[in-house]
């Protein structure tokens, strides 16, 4: 989501960009399935099996879409393949593209800005709470984890599920 606000990683010469697609119109659904995104710069060797679709014209000049590249071991190496892809996240990808189309080019920027503003606000409010310490002062994307590991917060963590709250993974434990 923050990619609507940040300069794209490809601008910096990054070879591979990865990310999660769950915020893009996908529900939790018992922990999955979700779609992930992976963009590879042309020329960087593919570290994984995958497929490509391209737009092309047929003999009569009509627009069409085709699978142009399939680096799937089960096709190429057959019985010597060490991987076999059977599941598809196409439906999740469809949810993502419907969501992105619904947002539009301006919407993705607006939602990115909104999330960054709210993150900054939440950070400020949390830092004011006694026993909560910020891990760093860097600009952060919306995934903020409070680092509280005081006895109070540990007690609170144990009691929380009974009160309908489920705090995230305690970073203090690492």
């Amino acid at each position: 989501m923050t990619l609507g606000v940040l300069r794209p990683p490809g601008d910096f010469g990054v070879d591979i960009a990865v990310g999660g697609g769950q915020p893009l119109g996908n529900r939790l659904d018992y922990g999955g399935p979700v779609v992930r995104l992976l963009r590879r710069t042309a020329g960087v060797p593919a570290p994984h099996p995958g497929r490509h679709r391209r737009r092309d014209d047929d003999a009569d000049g009509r627009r069409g879409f085709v699978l142009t590249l399939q680096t799937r071991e089960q096709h190429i190496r057959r019985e010597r393949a060490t991987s076999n892809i059977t599941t598809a996240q196409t439906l999740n990808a469809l949810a993502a593209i419907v969501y992105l189309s619904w947002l539009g080019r301006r919407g993705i920027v607006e939602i990115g800005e909104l999330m960054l503003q709210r993150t900054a606000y939440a950070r400020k409010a949390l830092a004011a709470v006694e026993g909560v310490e910020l891990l760093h002062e860097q600009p952060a994307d919306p995934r903020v984890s409070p680092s509280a590991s005081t006895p109070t917060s540990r007690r609170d963590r144990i009691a929380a599920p009974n009160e309908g709250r489920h705090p995230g993974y305690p970073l203090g434990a690492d």
Partner: protein
Amino acid sequence: VYAHLRELASRNVSTDDELSFLGAGMYDHYVPAIVDSIISRSEFLTPYTPYQPEVSQGTLQLMFEYQTAISELTGPARLERDALRGPERARRRRLPRLPAPQAHALPDLARRAPARRETLRDDERGLGHRGPGVPLRDGVTDADALPRRSATTSRPSSSRSRTSSAPVEDLEALVPRVKECGAIAVARATR
């Protein structure tokens, strides 16, 4: 039977009832109604692999549109939909870049989610990898701690990894340093 099953189902608690931050990257986001109304159409809900383009134009076009949108968000060039999930995906993405055992500039495992950390640690043990990974300084990757390219080591592999606290990294400064090591630069958008 229906009443019994409904009673069993009603014992479940969902994110509609309670507040959860347990997702480790997956959370309860707003999903506009248009998403369900389109993805529940049978031609999208029950398609087979689009091997025959003459009967698969819709499926192929939606994936093409997806490739294009993500490609625009992440920068120029190509994109692939990842067919793997979770810890397995983390392993596949990392494994091919693992070089000979003497080179180590792997991201600090302490920064990965617990399930992924275990998967990656197992792989590294099997491959004889040791090394603390690139440490953080003030919450972001310490560029000065990246290894120098050396004539005696094989191609070092180094990659960026999501830190648990998800800071925005200064790619402009980091990417040239990573490439200096002869490694592939991988950026990750956590949200």
